């Protein structure tokens, strides 16, 4: 617990400092394009209004105050309450990152296991090289290819957004609208996310297959299925769970590139816009969400581990 507290304090401090260490001036964003036409008085007024005239330590304590009150104030850019902005984005981000995490986990684990089981065969090697190629695909490029094929060329799926704007859809039509908008972003994320799981699974399983107890199990006459599920899978899954837990933590951060390519209204895009515009309060609040998510995912992994691997049980 003490360990987690230290991490939180360090993370919050970094969240506060990072935006302020970036070059560039948030004044441009607050005042809009006409920033150069402000008188020095007007400029000072604006800086004071958003609290940037206060000494750094005071701003820092105010940030802690924000964290405890859950009120992060207003965005410099859109003048909207930041808490609202974040709550609006979280469901969309979780929808596409959550689904793609499941898809890449299932596909990655199955293919990884299959590959390791048939190690050295033509199938294993071609799958391995295939995965390496897929991993090297830039995700924005993949997104653009999907759009140009499925939206522009064949007209099967909508090319942008999370819902059809101003469509007034209700019931199942609305659900289908959301699904059809999520298909391409989920596909793109799943495709780029699968090789990592596959590699971990394959490597971990190869290691396990080389262990003495596997040879022992075979020697005492256990069937292939029994060896695979009873001995190999269980000893293999721990590193894979670690990879997935880390990904779950980062899932809240969304994915800047995919959300931008598909104009998807998630947290990643919010952060991208906030960074581009030096929107300090939005950056601070969003980074805090990411920090919390990563810590919770870590905690989850810590709690799951003993269930999976008895060797890590401390009692």
């Amino acid at each position, binding site marked *: 617990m003490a360990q987690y507290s230290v991490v939180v304090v360090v993370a919050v401090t970094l969240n506060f400092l990072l935006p302020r260490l970036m070059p560039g001036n948030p*004044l441009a964003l607050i005042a809009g394009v*006409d920033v*150069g*036409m*402000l008188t020095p008085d007007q400029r000072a007024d604006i800086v004071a209004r958003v609290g940037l005239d206060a000494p750094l330590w005071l701003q820092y304590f105010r940030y802690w105050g924000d964290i405890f009150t859950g009120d992060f104030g207003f965005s410099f850019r*859109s003048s909207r309450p930041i808490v609202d902005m974040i709550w609006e984005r979280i*469901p969309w981000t*979780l*929808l596409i990152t959550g689904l793609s995490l499941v898809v890449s986990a299932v596909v990655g684990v199955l293919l990884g296991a299959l590959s390791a089981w048939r190690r050295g065969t033509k199938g294993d090697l071609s799958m391995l090289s295939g995965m390496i190629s897929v991993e090297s695909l830039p995700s924005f490029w993949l997104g653009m290819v999907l759009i140009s094929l499925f939206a522009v060329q064949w007209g099967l799926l909508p090319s942008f957004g999370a819902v059809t704007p101003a469509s007034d859809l209700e019931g199942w039509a609305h659900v289908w609208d959301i699904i059809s908008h999520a298909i391409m972003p989920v596909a793109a994320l799943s495709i780029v996310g699968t090789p990592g799981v596959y590699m971990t699974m394959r490597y971990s399983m190869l290691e396990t297959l080389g262990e003495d107890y596997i040879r022992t199990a075979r020697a005492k006459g256990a069937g292939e299925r029994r060896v695979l599920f009873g001995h190999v899978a269980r000893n293999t899954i721990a590193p894979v769970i670690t990879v997935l837990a880390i990904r779950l933590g980062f899932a809240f951060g969304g994915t800047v590139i995919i959300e931008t390519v598909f104009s998807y209204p998630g947290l990643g895009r919010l952060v991208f816009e906030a960074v581009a515009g030096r929107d300090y309060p939005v950056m601070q609040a969003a980074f805090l969400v990411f920090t919390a998510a990563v810590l919770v995912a870590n905690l989850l992994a810590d709690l799951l581990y003993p269930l999976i691997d008895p060797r890590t049980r401390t009692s």
Partner: protein
Amino acid sequence: MQRIKRLKWTVLLVVLALVIVGCGDGDAEEEPAATTAAAPATTAAPEPGDQEEPAPEPGDQEEPAPETTTTTAAPAPPPEPVTVRAAVTGDEGTLTPYTYISGFPGWNLLMLQYDSLMQLDAAGVPQPWLASSVNVSDDLTEWSVTLVEGVTFHDGEPLTSDDVAFSVEFYTTNPEASRFARDFRGVADVVVHDDYNVTFVLESANPGFDVVALADAPIIPRHIWESVELPSEHQFAGGTNIGSGPYMLTEYVDSQSYRFAANPNYFRGAPAVDELVVIVFADDAGAQAAIRTGEVDVIFERIPPEQIDLLDAQDPLDVILGPEFATQMINYDASIRPFDDVAVRQAINLAMDRQDFVDTVYLGAATVGSPGWIHPGHSVYNPGIATDVYDPAAANALLEGAGYADTDGDGVREFDGQPMSFEIITNASDSLRLRIAELTVEMLAAIGIETEVLPVDTGVWENAVWPGFDVNNGRNYQIAMWGWSPPVQADPLRLPWLVHSSLDRGFLNLTGYGNAEMDELSEALAVEPDPAERKAILGRMQEIIAEDLPFVLLLYPDGAYVYDSSVYADWEFIAGQGIVSKLSLLPPSARP
């Protein structure tokens, strides 16, 4: 035992999967909390005892008399409502005068809901709008405005002189909406004569008051805003942005879309487009894909030159082109060696193959820059300023004559014992500007000046060229690619801002330039009542700029907008502003 273990493992995996799926699916069913504003009732009765005015007359004087069906034929079916879906790149906030974000297209979308006293016509000249007439005194200090009678806000309340005076007062006492506070800076008093007559009394002569203020600032209703204390944080929960304009914002979903309904009682006539849906894209590639698929009908942003022919070739897409007064230019720090030497600045100017920039980078969709700053299509352009000045031989001779020789034979000239070798800083996010910078390096190499492009983040670039957006902070660059948005040039009375040596008046003078005659002309321009005289002064200023080169203007990108002509085709291109305006969405008869 084994069986139980296997079962436990399977259950664990399934539970984990379900937890993850649950997170996603559960939320999928939920509508994201949207800032949804109810459409204001256009038929709402005025508050009793609130106003002396009688209830507003429906319709207006310009609307044709209703047709009477005298034939026995079945009446024609009512026309299909026209919905136009427009793409923008980037959210624009809640679109009140205090929360819109960008000067373009944010201000343009804002002004769909509000009106200004004057409105630019297609030529970019201000015409009376909410005003039926505008008269200015000979000394340019008193601007008298008569309002069109019978104009109402979206909630049915009448728009009167009182709202005009209130708007000026509100903007100046709440200067967070910096643009509108600036518009009315220098207004000493607003005298309300009666409900429809009002006079702006200025502290000093301002010949451009019609362009910079009357055609720029939205008139806001007193009855909505007088109770607002923190306008930039006010959320108008449940209500909406009540203006007098042709459109009402009925729904806003942050970073996704805006929905505007036509105001059927608009005083110039009901809009031709019944519903406008503005869709927020994260980048322009997404918007271009969506217009190809037919998911949007127009893009409210300039399209890049390489897309013009591609999109135009696709049916039913069309591209409309027109002059915009945006600029691409070279800035240098004219207060340091060697750029303080006019010969060096002139040589750089002569070395620029402007036509090559237009052809190579913009594929023709730009206008060759005048070294005198003003666009050749502008009404105050001095035709004596040549734009075809490319002459690298003359540039080399000029440098040679001024003593900048290449003494060590490495192909790079020297000044004060140092090589003429500089960095050109530019913002990496603007790919066209980056390409201009790369060509500039080659062109400068041809006259013995070695340069290297330094592409950086926009914030870093701005901070080098214009630290803290305040010229009093000096500058931290040698050479920079730069550009101003159209309003800086559209109103030529802003020229002194760029070239006056006093940083108070020359608050956009980013190059540290100064010239005594220019300062005198700048001051004369500000108080000259006669338009012909002002044009003469501006003509002379252009000559000095072309000779003295406070900066090197390279080109003016043309505005290019793509739209689906099968959905709506009556787009009006306002010189210097483009197509995003209420004029485009009103029937041609209602335009000025």
